[in-house]
Every structure is written in structure tokens, then in C-alpha cells.
């Protein structure tokens, strides 16, 4: 079922593009503010339930959980300044399926440290248990650091990451397709549970996987759980165009968004796909206020929480590649140059070209007379949308109408109440504009995203 597109009020003849929204559970980086008194548990099920139910109240497309399979380290020790600790993603999603009815449930699961048969089974299980609401954000890891927690062990060559992911997803889909839609007869007389030829056989020999046998689950309600992919590189874009249903991208300017959107959507035809077969949803943060001034103040206050004095120093150390703990975070940037060979962080994205970054920062700090902490606040992660509910709704809508995105994956800064204001104040405005659903029109995540059920049209 495809979501209906009612014409918007007051604009006869013009059907605006519909916005898709997802809710990212606050993660284990400094976007998540834990020093605020309203910050709740990052692990109690009640927190997951609150955020998911809030998203469902707001008629969001899906709820999103990230993953990280090793605690991050800085200077050879566990990084202790940000939120640490999270659950196994699919297990939480299965539990959330019991306390939500329509909301899509998306989990990030690593294709490097899982095997296709087992993961395809787990994803199909979530799809069955949620009546068709499961999604898988496919990520790959190449580092030996994370590999130390796994049988498979260390290193996957970077060049092999996408070939492994592509073969993994192809194989998962083969497994999901291996039971005929009507494989189960469950007919007590004359005693036919499985129809003849109802369960197909897999015999796969590929570069990364060799698998033979039969799958253990009937075809799930969505046929294939929704595939999400994040990745900005050319390879990542090509993988998304060939494979994904949703791209989880980085948020940038309107022009950057339009260029990315046109590029990725332009690749679809080569894979025999239509532009609407893939939704592009950048991550976005936000800060709201009754007035623009109040919103700006709230945004600045959130940034100060996100960049504590200790976090500012830790951030500097990642660029400088050395211990900077002797410097005053409220004081000026030190004169020393980065150690280009030093590596202080593990388990997080590396910063390239440190000397250039350091030079740029130094110029900015001198020009604006910024302390270390003020500088880090300035150069990292400003909120994507800051303003009154009206202006935030307007800018989100503008991005979608300008074909810079199909919607956004919102990343609240607070657990579990960080989405409350957005749902209470921004969503109704989007609904009034006729660009966001007032009610769910379907039951599965594919329905919400306007994606066809695989194989159903053929």
C-alpha cells in the first residue's frame, strides 16, 4: 500500500512532496547531553519506550538505534566523558514491537561481525513480531580494534567492506525469499503443514560467504525488511543506489543536500530503480524556542552541555594527537603543533589532515578571541535547525520541497524526553501544511515510506 497524497489546502493542482521523519535514540557521543537534570537512563526500557511512543504519537516513519561493538577509547583508556553503554539493538526493537503498533523499528547491525544466516533470521523475526515494521541499517567495520571482541577477529580490508556488505545483503534477501509466500498450509486434514516445494534451498558460493541449506522462517510481512545505509563515499553512494531503501546521510547546506540528493537519485536508473524507490534522510538536530532569540539561547545552552571543559580538551587531543590535559579549556589555544603520527582515539571516526585543521582553528580562535572550549563549541556540531516551531517546520519543509532530502532522522539531545517538544509543536505545523501524515495510512514500514513489497509487483 502506498501512502495517499491528498492535495494540500489552498494550493489546488500542486501536490507537495511528503516529508518522512525518524527518531534516533540518543547515542554515545557528545550530542547526547547527560548533565541536564532532565536526562534519564540510557539503558532502562522505559526510556526506549518513551521515545518510541513519542515518535509514534508524532506519526513518525521509524525509530532508529545505532550500534557500537566496542567501548570507545582515548589515549588508550575507555572514553568516559560521553554516555557509555547501550543495549543489543534488535533485542530492544523486539521489545518495542510490543508497546508500539505502527512505528517502524530500525536497528544498526554490523555486517562485518555477523553471519548472514543468523542475522537474516533475526531480522525476519523482528519483522514477523512487529507485523512488518523492521529495518536494518547496514554498517561495516574494518578496524581490528572492534574485531578483538569477535570470533571473526580483526581486520577487514577497507576495499572489502562494501563487497562483503553487498554479498551479505544479497544473501539475506535470498534467504528471505526462500520460503514461498504460501509455504505454510497448516492444514490438519490431511496433515499438510508445509506445501510441497514451499521451502526453497539455498546454495551460495561467493567471495565472502559459502552457505547451503534451508532458512528457518516463513517469508516475513514486508518480504524484505527495509534496508538503510549510511555512507558518503562514492562507493557508499553506489552501494546505496544498488541496494538500499533509505540513505541515512549527513546534513549540510541546502545546496549540498540538493547535490547529494541529485547524485544518489541519479544513480538509481542504472540499477533499474525509480527515484522514489530510495528515500534520502539526513540526520538532523534541533533546538526550539518561543522566539528566535530564545531558540538561539537554548541552542547555545545545549552546546555548552555538549562540550564540557573536559570534552573540549579531549576533542583537541584528537586533532593534536597528543596529551593536552595540562591546558586550561577556558584559556587560549596552545602554540604547539599537532603530532601527525599520534593516535589518541579508537572506535570513532578519524580526523584527516590534522595540520590543516589546526591551522584553520588557530586562525578562527585568534580572529574571534575564542577559548579552547569556545572554539570547540564553534567548530563542532551546531544544531541543524534552530528556531520557533514555525521556522523549524518551514525550514524542514523547504529542504524537502527543494529536493535536498525526503525527510530527516532527528537526533534529540536528551533521553528520553528530547523529542516531546518537536512532536507537540513542530509536527502539527507540518501536518497543517499538508506535508506530513496526520494519521498512519498503512501498517508496515514499507507502507509509511511508500516502498513496494519486493516481488509483489512482479
Amino acid at each position, binding site marked *: 500500500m502506498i501512502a495517499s497524497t491528498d492535495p494540500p489546502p489552498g494550493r489546488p493542482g500542486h501536490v507537495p512532496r511528503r516529508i518522512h521523519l525518524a527518531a534516533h535514540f540518543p547515542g554515545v557521543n557528545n550530542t547526547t547531553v*547527560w*548533565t541536564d537534570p532532565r*536526562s534519564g537512563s540510557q*539503558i532502562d*526500557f522505559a526510556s*526506549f519506550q518513551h521515545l518510541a511512543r513519542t515518535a509514534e504519537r508524532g506519526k513518525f516513519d521509524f525509530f532508529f538505534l545505532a550500534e557500537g*561493538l*566496542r*567501548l570507545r577509547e582515548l589515549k588508550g*583508556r*575507555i572514553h*568516559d566523558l*560521553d*554516555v557509555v*553503554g547501550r*543495549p*543489543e539493538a*534488535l*533485542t*530492544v526493537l*523486539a*521489545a518495542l514491537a*510490543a508497546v508500539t503498533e505502527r512505528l517502524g523499528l530500525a536497528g544498526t547491525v554490523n555486517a562485518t*561481525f*555477523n*553471519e548472514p*544466516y*543468523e542475522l537474516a*533470521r*533475526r531480522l525476519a*523475526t523482528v519483522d*514477523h*513480531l*512487529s*507485523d512488518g515494521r523492521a529495518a536494518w541499517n547496514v554498517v561495516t567495520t574494518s578496524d581490528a580494534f572492534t574485531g*578483538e*571482541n*569477535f*570470533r571473526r*577477529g580483526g581486520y577487514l580490508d577497507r576495499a572489502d567492506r562494501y563487497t562483503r556488505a553487498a554479498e551479505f545483503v544479497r544473501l539475506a534477501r535470498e534467504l528471505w525469499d526462500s520460503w514461498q509466500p504460501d509455504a*505454510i498450509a*497448516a492444514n*490438519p*486434514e490431511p*496433515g*499438510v*503443514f*508445509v506445501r*510441497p516445494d*514451499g521451502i526453497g534451498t539455498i546454495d551460495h558460493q561467493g567471495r565472502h560467504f559459502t*552457505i*547451503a*541449506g*534451508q532458512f*528457518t*522462517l*516463513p517469508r516475513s510481512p514486508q518480504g524484505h525488511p527495509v534496508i538503510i545505509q549510511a555512507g558518503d563515499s562514492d562507493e557508499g553512494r553506489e552501494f546505496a543506489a544498488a541496494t538500499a531503501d533509505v540513505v541515512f546521510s549527513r546534513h549540510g547546506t541546502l545546496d549540498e543536500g540538493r547535490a547529494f540528493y541529485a547524485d544518489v537519485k541519479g544513480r538509481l536508473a542504472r540499477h533499474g530503480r525509480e527515484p522514489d524507490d530510495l528515500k534520502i534522510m539526513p540526520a538532523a538536530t534541533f533546538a526550539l524556542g518561543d522566539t528566535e532569540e530564545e531558540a538561539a539561547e537554548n541552542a547555545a545552552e545545549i552546546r555548552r552541555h555538549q562540550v*564540557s*571543559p*573536559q570534552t573540549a580538551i579531549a576533542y583537541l587531543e584528537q586533532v593534536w594527537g597528543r596529551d593536552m590535559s595540562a591546558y586550561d579549556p577556558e584559556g587560549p589555544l596552545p602554540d604547539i603543533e599537532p603530532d601527525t603520527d599520534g593516535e589518541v582515539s579508537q572506535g570513532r571516526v578519524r580526523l584527516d589532515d590534522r595540520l590543516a585543521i589546526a591551522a584553520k582553528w588557530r586562525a578562527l580562535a585568534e580572529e574571534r578571541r575564542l577559548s579552547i572550549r569556545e572554539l570547540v563549541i564553534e567548530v563542532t556540531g551546531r544544531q541543524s535547525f534552530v528556531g520557533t516551531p514555525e521556522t523549524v517546520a518551514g525550514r524542514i519543509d523547504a529542504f524537502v520541497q527543494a529536493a535536498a532530502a525526503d525527510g530527516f532522522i532527528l537526533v534529540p539531545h536528551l533521553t528520553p524526553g528530547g523529542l516531546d517538544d518537536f512532536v507537540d509543536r513542530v509536527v502539527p505545523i507540518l501536518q497543517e501544511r499538508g506535508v506530513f501524515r496526520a494519521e498512519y495510512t498503512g501498517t508496515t514500514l514499507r507502507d509509511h515510506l511508500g516502498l513496494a513489497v519486493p516481488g509483489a509487483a512482479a
Partner: protein
Amino acid sequence: MTGAPLHLAVALDAAGWHPAAWRDPVARPRELFTAGYWAKLVGEAERGLIDFVTIEDALGLQSSRPDGPDGRLDLVRGRFDAVLLAARLAPLTSAIGLVPTATTTHTEPFHVAIGIATLDHVSGGRAGWRAQVSARASDAAHFGRRTFPEVTPETIGEHQGHIAGLLAEAADAVEVARRLWDSWEDDAEIRDVATGRFVDRDRLHYIDFTGSRFSVKGPSITPRPPQGQPVVTALAHARPAQEFAAGSADVVYVTPHDREQARSVVAELRSLPRAGEPLKIFADLVVFLDGDTGRAVERRTRLDELDGAEFASDAAVFAGTAEDLADLLLDWAQTGIQGYRLRPGVVPHDLKGITRGLTSALRRRGVFRDAYEADTLRGLLGLPRPAGRHRRASTS
């Protein structure tokens, strides 16, 4: 209660443990792959004040052969991932323990450990794990990482080394899980605004496990579960598996067929090396329960006719009344059996026979609870919450 309390678990699998159970008029075979089906079963078990349910699982299709598919179309085929099914049931229940099966053979010990820890978090401390090995060559072919010999009844004697290796690996997997569960001390999360620290990293510990099949560095990514250590359980028919259970599990399921076998299996288990809390010994029985014995036997016979074979099980099979079953369970309990994991022949019929008939009969005999006395699975089983292996080091 007047006597030593008996613990009761129910083993859930498809439409029940008789192969033809799905063809019984009370069965709902078309609902097997819906959450609602399982919610009704576990709800019934919780109304009956059962200690916990187990959920069967495997990394391959059910088969009547020891290894490989049997091609039979007249039997239930297909299963959910049991850990995820248990998680789906957790918010719908509030007191009953949830003990899914998870295989140790082809899975990543890290993933299993955080999955069970997460089940404990989402259930508020009601998680267990039935750890199971997968010896089948056909299951190994689903992963393509190892080649196993095909196990047949005729050649099983030649595969003792293979089985022993899998059990040693299972012991390593449980050890990794236990170390990961303890790798966060209970008070590791400090949220100290003054120093900007969310956790005290001195209360997070690498586990540095190295075994013959895998190494795991740790710490866990998941904070310590509410129970500290979720309850680990294992089925053991004979020696190498009994050693695994005695060395690694909190609860073992055994399969005596009479009182004498119960006595000897208890004695054997108690003679095995064991550290920490004594092992809880549960006996498995398949049960067909009715108001009179004749009807129960007749029902079982009718199912046998549908299946075309007399029902056989690794566990003892009881067909009769709840009163007679209660007497049998109390009799075996004299040998040191502390609880029973009952496998209903047909659900929901025999499940209700347990939750309504048997529990009442046991209550009249003063050996079964009137209400849940604890809100964690450890609490129900009378197992203390472990302080954690690193606890003393950091507080002294």
C-alpha cells in the same frame, strides 16, 4: 507452603511437543508465526505462577533425522529467533522468567551475551539463557566456516570427540558471557558533572578471554544486567553435557524416566566439580493431562495415529491426571530433584493442565506458591544476586 517448594517451568515449542500436536482441534497452527500466539501462551503460564518458560530454538529447520532435513511436510517447520521472541514477550508480562535457547556453536559469544543482558534489562531482571550446542553438519553449512561430520544414530559413538569439543566451546561461551556481564560494576555509571565523567572507567573491566575457538577483549557495551548474572540453563542427558552444566550453568534439565534414574542422575551431578552456588536440578517430562487417565492416554494415542508412530521422547512421558502427576513430581523430589520443566504435549490444552490443574494439586500439597514472591528470575529460583567479580577489588 508446607513442604520444600517445587519450581515449575514450561517448555514452549510450536504447538506442543507431540509431532502431531498442531493437528489437534485445540491447536492454532496458522497463528504460530504471530506474536499474539506466544503472548497468549506466556500469559497463561504467568497466570499459573510458573517460574519460567523456555523457548526452543536452533540454527536449522526442525527434523526427525539427527542431521539434515527430513523432507516431511506433515510436521511444523520454522521457528523465530528465541531471544527476540522472549524480548517481544517481556513487556507483556511482569513476573515470569523468560529463558530463550541460544546456540553457542556458530554464534558470536559477544552478541549472545549482550542479547541476554538486554533481555534482562527489558524484562526488569527476568532473563535466562538455555545454552545449547549445534552438532549438525547441516547447521554448520548455514555458516560455511566449519565442516562438521554428519551425525547419525549409527555413528554417534564415533563423534564423541566432536561433541566434547562443542561442549568445551559452549563452556567458553558461557564464561565469556559471565565475564562480560560482570565487566561493568553495578555503580560504573557515575554522571559526575564536576569532573565531566559519565562513567568511572576504573569500574569497567576488560575480560581478556582467550580460548581455542575465540578471544574476546571486552568490556561489554551493555551495562550490568539487573540480575547481575542472568540465569544460565542447560539440558544434559549424559556425561560430557553434565560436566558442562555442572561447570557452567545455574540450572540443569535432566531426563530420568523413573525415580531410580532420578536418584542416580542427582547423585552423578552432585559428584561433579562445581564452584559457587549449588546447581539447581530440574527434571524434564512431556505431559498429557486430562480429568481422567483414560482420556489422556486416548488423546496421546490419537495423536500417535495421526503421526503414524508411537511418540518417543528423550524425557519421560506422562499421560494422566494432574493429581497423579503431582504425586509423581513429589515422589521424584525426594531424590533431590528441585524443579520440573514440563513439556506440554499439546498447547494450549496441556499448558492449561499444568497452569490450572497441576499447580492447584501441588498447592493443595503445600509445595507451590500462591503468588509470585519475587520480581526477578533469580528471586523466584532462590538464587542470590551475585555481587560481581570485580566488586571487592574496587571497594577495598
